[in-house]
């Protein structure tokens, strides 16, 4: 296992993080150490083991199709860093 700066850059892009060159070096080393430690799991035979997503067995949690009051436009936009009329404003999205 060896995490390179290029790996770090790829993951950072996926995670929408911008890292400085120093951070990239640092993270490459630290991730390498942590993933190296994690390698120990590979030694365990997990054939036929069902993966666990929820520790407590649960199923079928529903709500009925009935309307609850929305919080309203002003509250929805109250924390917006930028708004334009009734919209959240963001830099232009080009498709």
């Amino acid at each position: 296992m060896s995490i390179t700066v290029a790996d770090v850059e790829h993951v950072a892009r996926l995670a929408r993080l911008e890292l400085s060159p120093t951070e990239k070096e640092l993270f490459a080393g630290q991730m390498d150490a942590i993933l190296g430690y994690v390698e120990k799991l590979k030694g365990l035979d997990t054939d036929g083991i069902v993966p666990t997503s929820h520790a407590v067995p649960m199923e079928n949690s529903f709500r009925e199709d009935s309307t609850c009051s929305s919080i309203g436009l002003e509250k929805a936009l109250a924390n917006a860093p930028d708004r334009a009329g009734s919209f959240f404003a963001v830099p232009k999205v080009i498709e």
Partner: protein
Amino acid sequence: MNIFDMTIHELHTALKGKQISSVEATSAMLKRIEAVEPNVGSFITVTSEQALAAAEQADQLIAQGECDLLTGIPLAIKDIFLTKGVRTTCGSRILHNFIPPYSATSWEKLRDRGAVLLGKLNQDEFAMGSSNESSAYGITRNPWDTTCIPGGSSGGSAAAVAARQAIATLGTDTGGSIRQPASHCGCVGLKPTYGRVSRYGVIAYASSLDQVGPLTRDVADCAVMLGALAGHDPKDSTSVDTPVPDYSATLSQGVKGLRIGLPKEYFIDGLDPDVQKAMDAAIDTYRRLGAEFVDISLPHTDYAVATYYLIATAEASSNLARYDGVRFGHRAEADGLLEMYTKSRSEGFGSEVKRRIMLGTYALSSGYYDAYYLKAQKVRTMIMNDFIKAFASVDVILTPVAPTPAFKIGEKINDPLQMYLSDIFTIPVNLAGTCAMSLPAGFSASGLPIGLQLIGKPFDEESILRAGYAFEQATDWHTRKAAI
């Protein structure tokens, strides 16, 4: 007796008997906060005005003869709980300006019973840390030794109880974030079974592991708080709809005949001698009280930290995607959309958060999912099965909370893996989804608190509370006060 030294049940008696008003109690707490806060740093936000207003309301209720156990009791909660109209940062710069339009169910439940909110407590950023050093709002110091960390991520919640800045507090526990700071600060901390308390309105770190719980001065208070918090919430699909017992009612039933398991994997050679000594003493105490000890094995313990760091970081990488500068929180000046995302997130998140997002993103990314995330989920099953097997022959499990007492500020900050390994005894409980409590069980040679962990069967908080209460009645560790 100082008001700020009181427990919930003591203050309740005084409020009900009208010896003290809630306004008096709240003012005393606010004064105490002001006095010790410079040395501790437990709070991110103190809500003095709202607290006094709430206390006045509580006094009116009490005057009308309505004095619930929590009416008028001044509490503080971790800044991970959303509080309507009160800034909620989760210890992060990315939420420095976030004023929630709604409140967490857990806080609402306490508030509805008349509790008074003193403020929002410091924590590791997004609950990611074991030392409270990753907060964007300054470090929190251990009230027993201000050169040491209070533990984390609910470090502020533990320090505030230990420094008597709040009668009790709320924290969250994903890998030990209630129990480890409770242990380091000498208070009682309970992580309920996953699904016992609603997660609605609690900022998510790792959704399948996060659970809300109280930090208190003693076990009786812990039972009161859990009773108030527990129960099904239709807004949280993972909250469980099972009846909530009266936790206070069974506290004093003793431990005669209780079968306590001692997992060999937790009593290892590298254990700090002071911690080992405290555990030995605790075992003696329980023996005297009539409990039976059974040697057990939780064979996959050694894999827990690795499993946890894959599952928790993977979930976190997704949970923290919503901090994008579009609808709330920090937005950086940027040219274009992509830069807005990357700059806002990079400026807003601290290093530990970035590190975990990176790890989690990696573990889920194409080509690595099976080897990391899926593998970890399978090992999680094995760790759960360890507990199921163990609980076939014991009622509770006794272990240390942490391998060492609180370490020095800065000691592990540059070695994330070492920091992660300090959670080795608390993490398996989160992976198994069951309940566990930390309670004061002694002190190190240098005067730092040492905690004892009692792990219970899923939804059997009653047994660990009862065992904890019996221990507390037989010892006086919980009555010691940090000299701050």
